[in-house]
């Protein structure tokens, strides 16, 4: 059983739940940016949590199936058709040998996830099938898929007709509030700079990919200082340090960048806070123009958000179990 890529869509890559343990040498976790949607897609088609799926941003691929399969599409709202006939999202369905799976225009959100019963069967690299395009490994040939690629699929056990209840699907809003733990190098900002970070409604620019999401809308003021030895001359510079996933850096004080799952692992720009892990799925579903605010939360609140998300995952498992 295999899938032929007839047209690749945009930035369509093989991803799973990610690769752990190599961030210390600059290899980020990668994996689906919206982990919840990817997990839901897998559970819908009877896969293990860690099965590999396809992720595409803004524009879906065209896929031809060489054999019958059970498929589910989650994530962004985007019309799905098989052989020209509409199919639901967040619900598993059958495709027949030779069927063409296609997508219409993006309506809400940014990234779709396509799971096939059995999972995309590419070799695992460092314990994961996720594509890390910057490093050129993982996934299919270490890069986004191209027309003509043929992806093997494992043995599946899924069935059509499973459905994720509406209340468990992500909201996909164009106005977002991201819970943020302030800290890291935020002491480098003046009070006005910190206020600007939190009071500005930021707009996602087109510079938004698996590495990071860049926003515009304001300017942050830094405390003046004699820069420490090795830090570089701009007040937003620090001695190069490790970047947490979800951390917010503000080069030059303009255009904050949230690092996502293909993050550069470190560098010389001051970070002023970190989006909580539970909200990184929300970031993944923001498209350019999305209006975003950073809401400061404590570590305790971040852990509550994490627990809420875990309960949502348990509910999802129960609903599809």
């Amino acid at each position: 059983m295999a899938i032929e890529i007839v047209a690749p869509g945009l930035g369509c890559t093989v991803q799973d739940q990610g690769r752990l343990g190599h961030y210390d040498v600059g290899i980020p976790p990668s994996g689906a940016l919206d982990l919840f949607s990817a997990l839901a897609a897998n559970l819908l088609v009877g896969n293990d949590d860690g099965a590999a799926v396809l992720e595409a941003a803004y524009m879906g691929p065209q896929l031809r199936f060489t054999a019958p399969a059970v498929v589910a599409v989650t994530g962004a709202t985007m019309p799905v058709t098989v052989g020209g006939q509409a199919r639901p999202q967040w619900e598993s369905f059958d495709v027949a040998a030779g069927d063409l799976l296609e997508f219409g225009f993006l309506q809400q959100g940014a990234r779709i996830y396509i799971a096939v019963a059995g999972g995309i069967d590419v070799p695992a690299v460092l314990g994961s099938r996720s594509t890390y395009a910057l490093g050129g490994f993982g996934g299919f040939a270490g890069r986004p898929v191209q027309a003509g690629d043929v992806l093997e699929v494992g043995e599946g056990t899924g069935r059509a007709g499973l459905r994720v209840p509406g209340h468990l699907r992500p909201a996909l809003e164009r106005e977002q509030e991201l819970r943020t733990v302030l800290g890291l190098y935020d002491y480098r900002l003046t009070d006005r700079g910190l206020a600007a970070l939190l009071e500005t409604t930021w707009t996602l620019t087109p510079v938004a990919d698996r590495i990071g999401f860049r926003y515009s809308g304001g300017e942050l003021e830094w405390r003046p200082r004699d820069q420490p030895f090795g830090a570089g001359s701009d007040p937003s510079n620090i001695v190069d340090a490790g970047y947490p996933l979800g951390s917010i850096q503000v080069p030059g004080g303009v255009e904050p960048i949230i690092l996502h799952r293909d993050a550069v692992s470190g560098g010389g720009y001051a970070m002023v806070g970190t989006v909580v892990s539970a909200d990184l799925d929300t970031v993944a579903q923001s498209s350019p123009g999305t209006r975003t605010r950073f809401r400061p939360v404590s570590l305790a609140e971040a852990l509550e958000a994490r627990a809420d998300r875990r309960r949502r995952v348990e509910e999802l498992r129960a609903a599809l179990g």
Partner: protein
Amino acid sequence: MSSSTDASSTSTASRYSWGGDEHLVVQVSEEMSLEANFSVMAVTDVLRQRHLDGVMDICPANASFLIRFDPDVLAPADLEAAVRAAEAEVAHAPSLTLETRVVEVPVWYADPYTTETGARFRDRHQRPEGTDLEFAAAENALSSVQEFIDRHSGAPWITSMVGFVAGLPFMFQMVPRERQLEVPKYLRPRTDTPPLTVGHGGCFACIYSVRGAGGYQMFGVTPGPIFDPAQMQPDFADFMVFFRPGDIVKFRPIDETEYRRIRDEVSAGRFRFRQRPFRFSLDEFHADPDAYNRTVLEVLNGD
């Protein structure tokens, strides 16, 4: 713990801060120094040996370190306590050594690849005329490019951090601060850098592991791969990344002929960096840096 703890103190106490719910970042020092880096290496080594359940990544950086953890397995307060205990253990150790290795990295300085790339991005550079090496020599008040190359390749460097992208080493030269080579980054980053470019930004050298964007000055290229996802070269039999934090690096200038010869070895899949195990002692280094660096080179070149 809070991020604003004693924000005015920069030199004595480390600054602890949470990076969301999955990361702890510890800033050992705001400024770069061999001491700060050595402390980072020692503390992260101790933590690695603890094998704490719930710790996913321990990432030493130049003067700070980052720990990625799963707070469902390891409570943040317990992680913080373990890190503070490791810091205290290192602070009270009588003498610190680091088990590492010395590696020789051949460099074709002023090569045509980086020279051509530098010429293409002159509009982003402080000095539109000339090359990055000429700029670097002038910035350090040296009389010639050759003198800069002599300084760059004369004393060894310590790999103070690996990252940014896969396998990219940041290196800090093992010389007193007044002899550190400092060169600002490009005014605006380039969109292209040849793979295996030996670069420099601030007080750090780096080797670009993959082709891509970059803002560091470009001095030359090494023929030896440092990141090999296909694991074709013998140095990569175990892992796709060559450099590890703590590696001591000696640059050796080579000419085009030697560059081509080594590239042929790489094509044949039989290139290895010259490397020897080494126990680095910060105290012995400080007692006499120049004498110590001569010892480093004797270890590298001895058989």
